[in-house]
């Protein structure tokens, strides 16, 4: 029985007045599992992911990180969020800090590690994403792919229970996505629990334990990657996959 790292139950999030981004969604993800969410733009995937990290407050429903309920009142969300790593589509590194500074910040200010220890751990995280040599460079001096790798290091540094990634490669030029995907592949190999929103289909097929098709605010279909590539069960998934595969073939 795999330990559940993160789960949500009957989650709802509506943007006034009529846009329901998350409609009664429940999901579980276990230790070491890698699940991939995909679906049409605007379907609410990002909102859903942010609700899990409590960066956006859900209207109804519960989110659990291991045994802790994050949605009940009186929870120290900052402490809980320190156990979740989040990687953003647009990266959003702290531009006034070097790569090392970016990764260190949480270690020093949130986990309150002493200077030496924080530096050690930050360098270790940068090493994992192969950005150690760029430790003293500023984000503006790096390419998008390098910045995103630092973003991943920033999420990793606190040894979080789970890493949530919101389309980590979508904002990058195609030539740069490769390095980020390689990094994620390494992390997957090490058994990191990850929930990724992405449209990189070959990558999904390779590393995801389960793929989740999200459309119109709900989970329409879930299953192992092969299911989506050979025989999607639902109509919407079928249509989406056909379009996606045709698009990938053309590129």
């Amino acid at each position, binding site marked *: 029985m795999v330990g559940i790292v993160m789960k949500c139950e009957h989650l709802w999030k509506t943007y006034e007045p009529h846009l329901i981004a998350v409609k009664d969604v429940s999901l579980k993800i276990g230790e070491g599992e890698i699940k991939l969410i995909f679906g049409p733009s605007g379907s609410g995937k990002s909102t859903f992911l942010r609700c899990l990290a409590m960066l956006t407050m859900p209207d109804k429903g519960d989110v659990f990180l291991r045994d802790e309920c994050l949605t009940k009142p009186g929870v120290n969300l*900052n402490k809980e*969020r320190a156990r979740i790593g989040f990687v953003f589509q*647009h990266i*959003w590194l702290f531009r006034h800090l070097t790569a090392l500074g970016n990764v260190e910040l949480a270690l020093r200010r*949130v986990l309150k590690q002493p200077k030496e220890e924080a530096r050690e751990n930050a360098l270790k995280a940068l090493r994992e994403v192969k950005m150690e040599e760029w430790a003293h460079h500023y*984000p*503006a001096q790096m390419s998008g792919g390098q910045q995103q790798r630092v973003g991943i290091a920033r999420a990793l540094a*606190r040894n979080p229970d789970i890493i949530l990634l919101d389309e980590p490669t979508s904002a990058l030029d195609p030539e740069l996505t490769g390095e980020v995907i390689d990094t994620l592949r390494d992390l997957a190999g090490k058994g990191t629990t990850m929930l990724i929103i992405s449209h990189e289909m070959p990558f999904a097929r390779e590393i995801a334990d389960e793929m989740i098709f999200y459309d119109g605010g709900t989970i329409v279909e879930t299953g192992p990657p092969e299911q989506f590539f050979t025989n999607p069960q639902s109509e919407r998934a079928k249509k989406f996959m056909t379009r996606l595969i045709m698009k990938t073939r053309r590129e």
Partner: protein
Amino acid sequence: MFGVFAGLAFGIVLALGDLYGGRILSVIIRGYVEFFRGSPIIIQLFVFLYVLPASINYLVPSLHFQFDPLTVGFLVFGLNSAAYQKGYVKGAVEAIFEDQMTAGRSIGMSRPQTLWHVILPQALRIVIPAWSNEFCSITKSTPALLVLGIRDLTAAGMTIVGQTWRILETYSLIALLYLIWITAVTKIADVVYEKKKIPGIEISA
């Protein structure tokens, strides 16, 4: 001189208050800013020296409230500068705010922490060129203190002229002194800006 720094500190408080404080605070702050930006500084000085104490004394006669001119000078310049600087700071903060706040919270920092460690360091660097303009502006306004009877550089100049009738030399010298002072400080501001500039973020004043 003091006025500009006090203005900066208070300006930051105001900008944050306006952004976060909720409707009532916003309205109060906006009113305050409009007053200081919308009226000549000499009038503001008079208001503080005469009108305000008189109103307070009217309401509570036992107080015999009085401002001495020097305090008024400091106070008004400080508040005035703050009113302008709130605009600069707010603009700078809004330019970077949303994303950086989300990123900060995603690593487990609270809102105040994120403000202090992430947003303000960036916003303050953006503000430097505008600040140096503000400094020029304020320094050139100091002759207004004349109306309160405080002796500033210009007043000294007028006295000298009254005694020596050397109009040309005196005022040229005064102008030169102002020029040197302002140029020196703005040059320093430029150097600070260059050193502290975040690579990749360029804002033209």
